[in-house]
Structures are given as structure tokens and as C-alpha cells.
């Protein structure tokens, strides 16, 4: 029977005992539990990566303005900026994560990975990783399978949805998936891959979901960029062999606990945080449909 991805400890134990690469149990899970063929799985990963690459390209070439006006070609502005704060590579990462996420906000095609609100993070991380390290597509597709395994475990023990666990559950999970994929693709050990996941969760813990006017724009887009940056910093720390101290499964449990105790106003309801600022309330008036009919009580039964 295939591994069920209930926790990281059993994934590690399984791979160490069978001497399998980390992605192998993910393949077996999907084949045995969901009845897919191995061929379809690789094709689906290849298609997902192609859509991610396309989103990055679209975000940096086409006009990216949203109906609300809050998104206005931010990724292209960053790419064209004469000032580089860290390195050209860092700037590339940031522009790509922003660009792919802007495509999502502007009704373009993306991969929900794991969700639409976090759909800029893996494209930014993986396209940059491939270019910097000259990795072949197959390695990236393996990285996507690692990311999928990480997501399955987080979904089982915490949540991937902003409405359930706040932003930490969406962008935090995407960053953790990306960090694990980075370390895997660069040849890190299983300990290092999972340490990258643990460290990323430690960095993203507590982030609330407070979208202005309820739209997947502010602060979602800039958080996709910062989540990609945190994934790289965590991967760097982990692949150097630094111990995250708190084991990854316990970090996931903490993610779940924080999500559960987070107030509803911080879970995608647009009632708290940035969504509850004066400016956000102004924007809301412009964006929300105003001519909403209110039915009299007797008509309200259907």
C-alpha cells in the first residue's frame, strides 16, 4: 500500500527504508489512491510548469491592470527599476513572483499551487531556480511532486485555505512547498529538504488573511513576492545543515493551531487588518456592487 502522506516522519522513514527518491511515494500515492497513470502524472506536472512559465512571461510583458485599479503593472516597474537592492537574481525572483500573481489578479491563466491566492510563489521560485542552476525540466517536475507531497501533509494536519487558516495557510504553505523543492532540486538530503519546510513555516506563522475589498490583490500580490524570498532564505539556511530545532511535523501542528485560534475577521472575510483600514473602506465603496436588492422577508424563502 502506498504512503498516505499523514506526516513528514513517515515519508522520510519510507524513503530511507526503501532507498527511494522523495518523489517516488508521491507518484505511488496518486497512482494507487487516485487511479492515475504515471504517464498522466508526469504530463500534468509538465503542463502545470508550462502554465507557470507562461504566467511569468505574461505578467512581465502584457498590460496588467485590474478592474479595481489596485494592480497596475507592478512587476514590470520592479523589473525596470534602476536600483537593485540585493542582486539581479533577487530582483528576478521578486519580479517573477509578482508578475505571475498579477496575472492571477487580472483574470489570466495560472496554476493554483496550492491555491489561486498563492499562485505567484512557485512560478517565481521554480523558474528562477531553473535559470540560475541550469536544471532540466525533469528535475523541476520532480520538485513539483515534492511540493505536492508537502501540501498533502499540510492539508491533512493544518489547512491550505485562507478562509480556514489565514494567509499563513496559503502563502505560507506555498513558500514551504517551494523551499522544499529548492533544496531537493539542489541535491539536499531529506533532512535538509524537510528542514527547509520547517524553517519556512516558522517564518510565515501567524500571517492573517486580510484582503482589501475582499479582492485577491492587496496585500496578496506583495506577499507572493515576500513568500518567494522567504522560501529562498529558508532553503539557504536548511541546505547549509542548520537545525530548525522544532521538527517539521510539529511546525505543521503549530500552523494548524494558530490557524484554528485566529479570529474570523482575519480569515478572508475582509473585516480585519488591512481590509479594515480607512483607505480600504474607501476602495471597497468603489469596487463593491452598490445596487444590491434586498428582498422583503416573505420572498426570502426560495
Amino acid at each position, binding site marked *: 500500500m502506498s504512503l498516505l502522506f499523514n506526516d513528514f516522519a513517515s515519508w522520510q522513514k519510507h524513503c530511507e527504508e526503501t532507498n527511494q527518491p522523495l518523489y517516488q511515494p508521491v507518484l505511488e500515492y496518486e497512482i494507487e489512491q487516485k487511479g492515475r497513470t504515471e504517464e498522466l*502524472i508526469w504530463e500534468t506536472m509538465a503542463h502545470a510548469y508550462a502554465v507557470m512559465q507562461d504566467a511569468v512571461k505574461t505578467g512581465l510583458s502584457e498590460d496588467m491592470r485590474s478592474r479595481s485599479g489596485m494592480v497596475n503593472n507592478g512587476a514590470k516597474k520592479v523589473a525596470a527599476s534602476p536600483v537593485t537592492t540585493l542582486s539581479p537574481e533577487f530582483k528576478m525572483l521578486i519580479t517573477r513572483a509578482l508578475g505571475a500573481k498579477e496575472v492571477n489578479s*487580472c*483574470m*489570466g491563466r495560472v496554476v*493554483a499551487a496550492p491555491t489561486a491566492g498563492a499562485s505567484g510563489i512557485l512560478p517565481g521560485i521554480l523558474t528562477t531556480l531553473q535559470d540560475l542552476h541550469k536544471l532540466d525540466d525533469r528535475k523541476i517536475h520532480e520538485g513539483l511532486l515534492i*511540493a505536492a507531497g508537502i501540501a498533502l501533509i499540510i492539508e491533512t494536519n493544518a489547512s*491550505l485555505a485562507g478562509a480556514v487558516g489565514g494567509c499563513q495557510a496559503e502563502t505560507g504553505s506555498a513558500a514551504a512547498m517551494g523551499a522544499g523543492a529548492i533544496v531537493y532540486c539542489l541535491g539536499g538530503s531529506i533532512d535538509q529538504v524537510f528542514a527547509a519546510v520547517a524553517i519556512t513555516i516558522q517564518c510565515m506563522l501567524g500571517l492573517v488573511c486580510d484582503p482589501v475589498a475582499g479582492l485577491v490583490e492587496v496585500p496578496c500580490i506583495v506577499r507572493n513576492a515576500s513568500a518567494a524570498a522567504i522560501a529562498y532564505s529558508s532553503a539557504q539556511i536548511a541546505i547549509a545543515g542548520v537545525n530548525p530545532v522544532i521538527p517539521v511535523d510539529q511546525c505543521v501542528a503549530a500552523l494548524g493551531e494558530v490557524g484554528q485560534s485566529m479570529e474570523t475577521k482575519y480569515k478572508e472575510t475582509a473585516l480585519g487588518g488591512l481590509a479594515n483600514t480607512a483607505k480600504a473602506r474607501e476602495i471597497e465603496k468603489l469596487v463593491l*456592487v452598490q445596487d444590491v436588492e434586498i428582498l422583503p422577508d416573505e420572498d*426570502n*424563502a426560495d
Partner: protein
Amino acid sequence: MAEKSSIFDMIGPVMIGPSSSHTAGVVRIARAANRILGCLPEEAIITFYNSFARTYEGHGSDKAILAGLLDFKTDDKRIKDAFELAHEKGLKYTFRSIGNASTMHPNTIKLNLKGCGREVEVIGQSRGGGVIRIVEADGFSADFSASLHTLIIDADDVKGSIAFIADVIAHDDCNIATMNVSRKGKNEMARQFIEMDSGISPVALEYLRHLKWVKNVTYIPNID
């Protein structure tokens, strides 16, 4: 414990933004309604309820519903241009929003569609992650997701009809996943909503259509 997800939901689906419940789910509700109508509609009255009533413009759900009525898939890049394309194809539409339908799911849409000489009313919910549930069709309560293969059978409310139909489906090697029967009154017309794990053959479908006590059969293959 809930059934575990597919990795295709972890890295996927490929979809049009910004949000799976406001775009992908909305497109799928419209595509399911087209199939209940039996053709692409010529006229549509679209009512957004509750949370959708306020947010449908900002999230582009108006474009998503028109795109679905034009039968675009959830990952079709043309969704963005649905207003222009609906105009080109001559689809007439009206939007309404109702803010306080307290008995309905927060993200509910009602579609009143006209086309091919027919009129239907379909109510659907967008439940997150692109998952939908059709809860009413033509005044009959329903409960199907359109992610499996669905049969809608209108038949006289006669004894043994459910067993007979289930038998035909079983002989076609289809497994029934869910079944929901609703009728307007005793010995009146009953409507059966049957979800199957695999598609039914054209022969079995024709057979069902030719039964004397069966008035109408609508087949909705899984909607991607």
C-alpha cells in the same frame, strides 16, 4: 476522516484567476446549466446572491458566468473578454444581485436561460476550489456536482421506476455514486438526479429515452 486530496489539486487546477470560487466555480455552474437547457442559451437572466451579490464585479464573476454560458472551459484565456464575445455571439443577458437570501449558500447563482425553444431555471453554489453543487433545476431540488457523470430523468411517479433505471445503468457497467429523487406530488412527475462514476453508453441512453413512462432524459458528462 475526509477523503485525501489528489496531488492534481495541490499543483492545480490550471485556472483563470483571481479566485477558484469566483471564476472557476462560476464558469462550471453556467456550463452545467447549458447542459440542462440542452444548448447554448440565447437569453440569460443571472442573479447573484448574498456574498456574490456584492463581490461579483470586483472578482470578475460576471465575465466568468458569461464565459460559462458561451461554454468556455475554466482555463480558457478568453474568459477575460467574455463581455465582448457574448456581444459578438448575440447572447442577451441581464444581471441582478440580491443581498439577503438568508436560506441560500453565501456564493449562490440563479440562472434563467432561454434557448432552443426551451426555458430553464438552475440554481448553483460555488463552494470553493472550483467545486460546485447544482441545488435546483426547474423547481425540482437537486444535489449534484457535475464532476461525475450525471443523468437527469423525468419520469412518471410509478412503482419500480427507480429500481428499473438503476438496473439499466448497472447493466451498462456504470456505478451509481449518488442518487436524488424529487417529485412535485404523489403520482405526478418525478425527477431523478443520478451521478455515476463513469459515462453511460449511447445505447443505454436511447433505451432509457424510449421507455413509455420516461418523459425526458438529460445527460451531463463530467464538466472539467
